[in-house]
């Protein structure tokens, strides 16, 4: 026999201004099954909660309904209050008479009637609530970090320093990411590799970190605290245990003209290569597509195939018969730190984007992007730090820099701002002017976004001390005119067209998510936006989590971001994970689905519609062990309680605890009656 307690909250003026709470409480008091009904000014306050606790004790309540604000705000508050009085927290519910009533209506009488109805429906539901117990699942105290750029490195180090095990997976042959390609970093003009490489070494030497470079995540299953991750370790064709990093293989290699990815195609590498001298791990990789040995082997010419690297290797580390291997690891949490790639202005674009035909579609050799300029400026780059034109190697005397190429350009398909370009273009002008004292640097910009600490001062320094000329306006077109590139821009501040014969043009192209990130997101059941940036759980208050429990984000994979913010975000993700790992068990809300195996028809529509991959198939066996049926089963650790399965199931054999069909129908009937 139900004895429900109803508490109508005034919420100060928020509810009471429109809803007559006293009348509501009085009406609800008369309902069958309601043993207690009062109204009060602030139910969420201590005295308010005390009212609930007292009523539970005095009136032996079997359920509680608080008619107040949204359950998003205070459901936990009132459930805790009930629990502390010995009433199962899942016997308490809220009726939203604020967002769904007082905040949207004006007529006091009608609003009060509606508030009474809203509370009444919930009362009918609560009559059918059953006590539920919090689900507890064990936690594997290991983390997987996907991506070995600065964000991934920071996250790995922080988690490892916190005492937990980390597996760091990086798809390139070396960790370091784009930061390892940079010449100097803003706003300090620190040498990028100098500040990065110590961290890289720390990673590889840390006892708690297992580094899997040249590897990719193949498949992910499981749930927070209990993921199973299959990782593909790609074949280097070099035995990592034998190789001592001497580099003799690279010296011996006969294929020497492959455009180097690390040097953004401005330099050349060999077929067997290490991307850069400070690579971690310092073990080369054979680029099978370019390797003379593999090409000969593909033609069936094993006898004539090259093997110069194998001959040169004193450790016998070259192994052309290596194959990709797979490992499966159990981890409790995953950090996505896949970073970014730069938008290209070429004609060939993914769906939804256009290139810049007006800037030559990338066919003009001396029109380069930011990362290419970094490689030119870098002392370890293809020109040893000399700024040189890719077309003829001459030193450019006049460089034009364009900001916002792709970014803030809805016509090309990218409406967002890439955040870092204003800063790195200012940096580029300074690097150029420091190396070429009589060089002219002109920057075409729309706005200057230099929001960080010391950032605005940095841009001013470029203008005031290093002589960079900033012109506010965009460039309509550029084309090659003999030896120079004619750039047609406009100075909106002085109101004049500006035409420059440039020796080189640097385009600040937009930051985009890394290639292939959508497939990875699908493996993780993590959501991403139309551009491919991962979605955070809440843009303001949960920036490093995703809506998939156990999957965290760090760095530019979530949105364009600079190094300090990426590092901060990585540490934040690490903190969240260490918090997760600090408990022996994970508590989850019991409002999860469960299948009645007896009536489940085994159609697996639920499996198909579940957004979280929470449904698995289990075999039902008879006493002899023969499989008689395969039915669905919900993993309570993964299920997020969305209810899609329940709505879909044709045989009504799957239900969400706390939201069973019976409970929902009782609400509906109350509305209709």
């Amino acid at each position, binding site marked *: 026999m139900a004895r429900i307690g109803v508490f109508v909250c005034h919420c100060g003026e928020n509810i009471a201004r429109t809803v007559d709470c006293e009348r509501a409480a009085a009406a609800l008091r008369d309902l069958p099954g309601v043993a207690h009904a009062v109204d009060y000014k602030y139910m969420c306050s201590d005295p308010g909660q005390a009212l609930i606790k007292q009523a539970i004790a005095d009136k032996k309540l079997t359920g509680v309904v608080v008619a107040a604000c949204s359950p998003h705000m205070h459901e936990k508050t009132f459930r805790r209050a009930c629990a502390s009085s010995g009433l199962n927290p899942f016997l308490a519910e809220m009726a939203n008479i604020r967002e769904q009533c007082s905040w949207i209506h004006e007529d006091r009488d009608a609003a009060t009637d509606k508030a009474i109805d809203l509370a009444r429906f919930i009362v009918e539901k609560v009559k059918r609530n059953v006590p539920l117990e919090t689900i507890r699942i064990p936690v594997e105290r290991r983390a997987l970090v996907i991506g070995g750029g600065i964000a991934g490195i920071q996250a790995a180090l922080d988690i490892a320093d916190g005492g937990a095990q980390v597996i760091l997976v990086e798809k390139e042959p070396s960790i370091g990411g784009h930061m390892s390609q940079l010449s100097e970093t803003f706003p300090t003009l620190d040498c990028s590799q100098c500040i990065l490489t110590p961290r890289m070494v720390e990673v590889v030497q840390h006892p708690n970190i297992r580094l899997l470079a040249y590897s990719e995540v193949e498949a992910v299953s499981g749930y927070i605290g209990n993921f199973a991750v299959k990782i593909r370790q790609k074949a280097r064709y070099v035995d990592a245990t034998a190789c001592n990093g001497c580099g003799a293989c690279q010296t011996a290699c006969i294929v020497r003209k492959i455009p180097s990815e690390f040097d953004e195609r401005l330099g050349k590498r060999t077929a067997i290569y290490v991307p850069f001298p400070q690579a971690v791990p310092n073990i080369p990789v054979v680029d099978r597509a370019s390797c003379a040995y593999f090409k000969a082997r593909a033609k069936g010419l094993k006898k004539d195939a090259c093997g110069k690297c194998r001959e040169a290797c004193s450790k016998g580390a070259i192994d052309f018969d290596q194959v990709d291997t797979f490992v499966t690891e159990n981890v409790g949490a995953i950090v996505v730190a896949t970073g970014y790639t730069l938008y290209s202005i070429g004609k060939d674009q993914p769906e939804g984007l256009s290139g810049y035909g007006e800037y030559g579609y990338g066919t003009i050799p001396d029109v380069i992007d930011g990362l290419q300029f970094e490689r030119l400026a870098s002392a370890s780059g293809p020109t040893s730090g000399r700024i040189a034109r890719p077309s003829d190697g001459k030193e450019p005397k006049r460089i034009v820099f364009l900001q916002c190429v792709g970014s803030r350009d809805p016509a090309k398909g990218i409406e967002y701002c890439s955040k870092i370009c204003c800063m790195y273009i200012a940096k580029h002008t300074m690097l150029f002017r420091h190396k070429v004292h009589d060089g002219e640097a002109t920057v075409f910009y729309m706005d200057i976004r230099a929001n960080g600490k010391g950032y605005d001062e940095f841009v001013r320094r470029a203008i005031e001390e290093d002589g960079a000329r900033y012109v506010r306006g*965009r*460039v309509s077109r550029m084309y090659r005119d003999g030896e120079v590139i004619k750039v047609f821009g406009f100075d909106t501040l002085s109101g004049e067209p500006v035409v420059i014969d440039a020796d080189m043009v640097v385009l600040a192209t937009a930051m985009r998510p890394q290639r292939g990130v959508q497939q990875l997101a699908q493996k993780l059941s993590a959501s991403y936006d139309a551009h491919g940036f991962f979605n955070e759980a809440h843009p303001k208050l949960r920036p490093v989590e995703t809506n998939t429990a156990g999957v965290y984000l760090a760095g530019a994979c979530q949105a364009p971001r600079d190094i300090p913010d990426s590092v901060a975000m990585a540490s934040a993700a690490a903190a969240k994970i260490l918090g997760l790992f600090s408990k022996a068990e994970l508590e989850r809300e019991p409002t999860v689905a469960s299948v009645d195996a007896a009536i489940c028809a085994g159609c697996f529509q639920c499996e198909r519609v579940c957004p979280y991959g929470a449904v698995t198939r289990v075999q039902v066996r008879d006493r002899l062990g023969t499989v008689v049926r395969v039915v669905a089963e919900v993993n309570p650790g993964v299920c997020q309680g969305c209810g899609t399965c329940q709505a879909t199931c044709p045989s009504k054999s799957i239900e969400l605890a706390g939201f069973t069909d019976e409970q929902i129908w009782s609400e509906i009937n109350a509305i209709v009656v």
Partner: protein
Amino acid sequence: MRAPESKIESPGRPSLAEEIRHATGRNPARCYQCGKCSAGCPMAAETSLRPHDVMRLVNLDRRDELLASASIWLCLTCETCVARCPNQCDPAATVDVLREMAVASSCAVPRPIAAFHRSFLDQVQRTGRMFELGLMIEYKLRTGAFLTDITAAPGTVARGKLSFLPHAIDGVKEVRRIFKACEAAAEEGA
């Protein structure tokens, strides 16, 4: 992904920006004054108001200044600005609307250009097609530029490019009716 267009309309007389938005289907507020249109405009060297200036003045509701300017008549409608604008603002369509407003408000139009358009359209109304000799004669009468290109006349005739007689089409009355109806609609402000 992009924020929806503002649906807040100001009370009272619609602003110039609202009128332009209504006529072109594009929201002038999208213009963030980057100047890319003006950087590529072939007439930027000859106009005082470049395309981005026009967009700015539209957003500042400077109707009189715009309608009185000669610059809006110097637009070639080459559509380069339209092709390049990052926000798809369509300055060319905006200028077209301003031109129409200027005509409707009887604002001054630079004489040769007004004369040319008037002469051209008169020919079309007269015969249904543009009779080039008629265009030249009327233009010269309107502008007094009798000697301009006069030396080219014999050459044009010799090349068989100038017909001396206009050729009226059968449906010339239809064409005249279309003209009347469109001019009446413009007067009503439709």
